[in-house]
């Protein structure tokens, strides 16, 4: 495994903002947003990290600054090594990051998903549309302030909305997310159930 120190020392001279990042498994580095595309290109062209495994983002919280961090997971098919690169988005309200579709065409849908879920605009992306939620959906569901149950919105199709009154509603959570228990218990007890069963749609959630 390529030690983090090696990656940092190899690239430190070229990228002054490069810093090691705490990692439980693979080499991980943090870099300034402005230097991220050049660093990724160097990793691809000079250090044989030819495969983009994953591209995702982190929302630290609505109050945090910097709020959004974009994460790239690279793999070297020649060396069988991974490296993780992260970069903070400069703007917390309108996060943006340079697109890497020109480096790895596979980044296309990852960046669309990232844009859909977090609202991070990938500059230079050839076709930055929502990929999971429908066009015109007003929220970015993986942001911290967005509730799992969702917020009321209109259905995607205006023609159908004119015909039926149904709208997208906040899902009734009745005790919060459903969790499956595992371990040595019978299957009936291991069924997914609400964490807190003291309230439901009819009985209000007690104020705690």
């Amino acid at each position, binding site marked *: 495994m390529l030690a983090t120190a090696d990656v940092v020392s190899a690239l430190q001279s070229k990228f002054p903002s490069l810093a090691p990042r705490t990692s439980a498994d693979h080499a991980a580095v943090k870099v300034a947003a402005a230097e991220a595309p050049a660093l990724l290109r160097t990793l691809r062209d000079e250090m044989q990290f030819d495969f983009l495994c994953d591209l995702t983002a982190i929302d630290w919280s609505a109050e945090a600054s910097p709020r959004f961090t974009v994460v790239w997971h690279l793999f070297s098919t020649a060396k069988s090594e991974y490296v993780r690169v992260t970069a903070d988005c400069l703007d917390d309200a309108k996060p943006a990051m340079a697109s890497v579709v020109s480096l790895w065409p596979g980044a296309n849908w990852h960046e669309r998903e990232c844009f859909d879920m977090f609202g991070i605009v990938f500059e230079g992306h050839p076709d930055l549309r929502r990929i*999971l939620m429908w066009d015109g959906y007003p929220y970015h569901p993986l942001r911290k302030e967005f509730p799992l*149950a969702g917020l009321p919105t209109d*259905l995607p199709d205006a023609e*159908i909305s004119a015909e039926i009154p149904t709208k*997208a*509603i906040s899902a009734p*959570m009745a005790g919060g997310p459903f969790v499956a228990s595992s371990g040595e218990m019978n299957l009936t007890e291991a069924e*997914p159930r609400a964490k807190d069963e003291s309230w439901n749609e009819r009985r209000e959630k007690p104020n705690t």
Partner: protein
Amino acid sequence: MVSPNTELAYNSKIEGDVIVSRLDAVVNWIRTNSMWPMPMGLACCAIELMGVAASRFDIARFGAEVMRFSPRQADCMIVAGTVTYKMAPQVRRIYDQMPSPKWVIAMGACASTGGMYRSYATLQGVDRIVPVDVYVSGCPPRPEALLDALVKLQEKVKREPGAKQLFKPRA
């Protein structure tokens, strides 16, 4: 001299090709035993739906083996799977394209109530967009459960006054 007629049952030699019955009974008999499903397979329930159509469970025994992928030729939409909000208008549109009379079976927990997907992306029960006749519990339901739902739907159709359907307002 008139010979006494001892025939008690229908005799085609005497009466010709004539059957007397109620129109509702005949129409419902036809509808009941040739209910062509529209397989609205959206998730894992669709796999069970395929099992229902295959030889072991054989939905053909109930006259519903003609899965029609064109809504124009279907009578009964089987919503098998999780309906997302993104898919919901399409489900409704396909329902609208089916000719009346038409029925809907909500197969499985997700189609019936949203199931375990209590989230921003999932329609909380397909009855919010189309009128459902039969709900099937299970995640996914056993094929027998869907056959039972079909039989229940057939019983419902048998009781329907046929003329009422002619004047049924567009749902």
